[in-house]
């Protein structure tokens, strides 16, 4: 390796950084529309999974239009507010706001067996990063029809198990309310028998993710409580 002059080193660094910056910003700008589209499809795909519809990415939009029958926004008192686009609301951002300013998206769907369900987004924190998902409720606003969870960087085999079918399917049929009081769903380390209404099995080796998920459900479904109470059938 030759020894280069300081001047050369400076010029080399500047040119290298400029090229790298150019390449990366070009890539980011050119690919952004495609990536945004992918995120949108992903969101629709997750919503459909919460009502038990699993789709290929190419089919997702068609199925979304078929199953999702409507969407609206409510406030923390459970009243519908106009002029918002529910699909674009980021629940994670809303949770940071004061209770009076929170805008909560609700999606409605009709399942294959003809039930009308509502789909509620949930958003929280796992061990390493954000976790999120969708919970669909039957029209009694109490019984869970299905759930889907996802995560950004939980450990495969441990925390990442939250988005596997064996874990998610435990939620079906669980109840949010007990004698009219909101109790949410707990993730139980000792294991939960299917007969328990408010608990599911935790994940071995994924305690913090499990706890994060429990908190996410309590927090996110909790702020919808007035809406649930007002609209149960």
């Amino acid at each position, binding site marked *: 390796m030759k020894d*280069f002059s300081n001047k050369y*080193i400076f010029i080399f660094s500047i040119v290298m*950084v400029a090229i790298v910056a150019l390449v990366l910003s070009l*890539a980011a700008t050119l690919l952004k529309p495609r990536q945004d589209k992918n995120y949108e499809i992903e969101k629709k795909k997750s919503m459909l999974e919460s009502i038990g519809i699993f789709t290929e990415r190419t089919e997702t939009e068609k199925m979304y239009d078929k199953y999702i029958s409507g969407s609206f926004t409510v406030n923390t008192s459970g009243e519908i507010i106009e002029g918002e686009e529910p699909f674009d609301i980021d629940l994670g951002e809303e949770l940071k706001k004061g209770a009076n300013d929170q805008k909560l998206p609700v999606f409605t769907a009709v399942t294959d067996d003809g039930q009308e369900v509502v789909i509620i987004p949930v958003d929280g924190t796992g061990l390493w990063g954000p976790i999120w998902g969708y919970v669909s409720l039957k029209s009694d606003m109490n019984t869970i029809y299905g759930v889907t969870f996802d995560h950004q960087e939980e450990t*495969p*085999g441990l925390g990442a198990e939250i988005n596997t079918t064996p874990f998610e399917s435990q939620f079906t049929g669980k109840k949010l309310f007990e004698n009219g009081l909101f109790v949410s769903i707990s993730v139980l380390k000792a294991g939960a028998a299917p007969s328990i209404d408010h608990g599911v099995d935790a994940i071995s*080796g994924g305690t913090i993710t499990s706890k994060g998920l429990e908190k996410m459900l309590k927090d996110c479904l909790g702020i919808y409580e007035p809406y649930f109470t007002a609209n149960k059938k």
Partner: protein
Amino acid sequence: MEKEPIFSSKNFKILTEPLGKNNPITVQVLGICSALAVTAKIKPAFVMALSVTIIVAFSNLVVSLMRKSIPGRIRIIVQLTVIATMVILVDQLLKAYAFDVSKQLSVFVGLIITNCILMGRLEAFAMSRGPWESFLDGLGNGAGYGLILIVVAFFRELLGTGTILGYPIIEKLGLYSIGYENNGMMILPPMALIFLGIIIWIQRSRDKSLIEKQK
């Protein structure tokens, strides 16, 4: 992995040695941290192996092409910049064109940048060798890394969760009904180290030339 060789036996050796005699994990002892993290299941281990292979091969190629103009005093920074750029580019492309793979990979992007194999190969090989050799060296080392990862992941997934690539093999064989239980410890990181130790042990007992001379 290997294409039909149009390259010389020396180049072929560059490609295959990392699979055994000069394996990046078991012999060079690089990339251990990521080997612990991603081997609880086979699928992420495979995705990780594939992305490391691609990135190390292309980083090797780029650094090798630039090697005559890289000032020695800032070479590590230059190498790091090349790796980081490559990782971000791959990540962006996956997000746009292979979203499902990118979801699998997202966890590991940071780990790839810090993977010692990349820096190790750039510094030890690509800085002094031609582009084609460097590219092969990258492919070989990535594959050698991947091989160990997948072997470890296979055993950890089988013994820890009783599945192979998500297929519940133990359940289908009916072993649970005769009292078999999964070993929960297998899915915790220390077991990866123990498996690596066993692999190194086997490899060294078969190939005595790997054992360091007693001083």
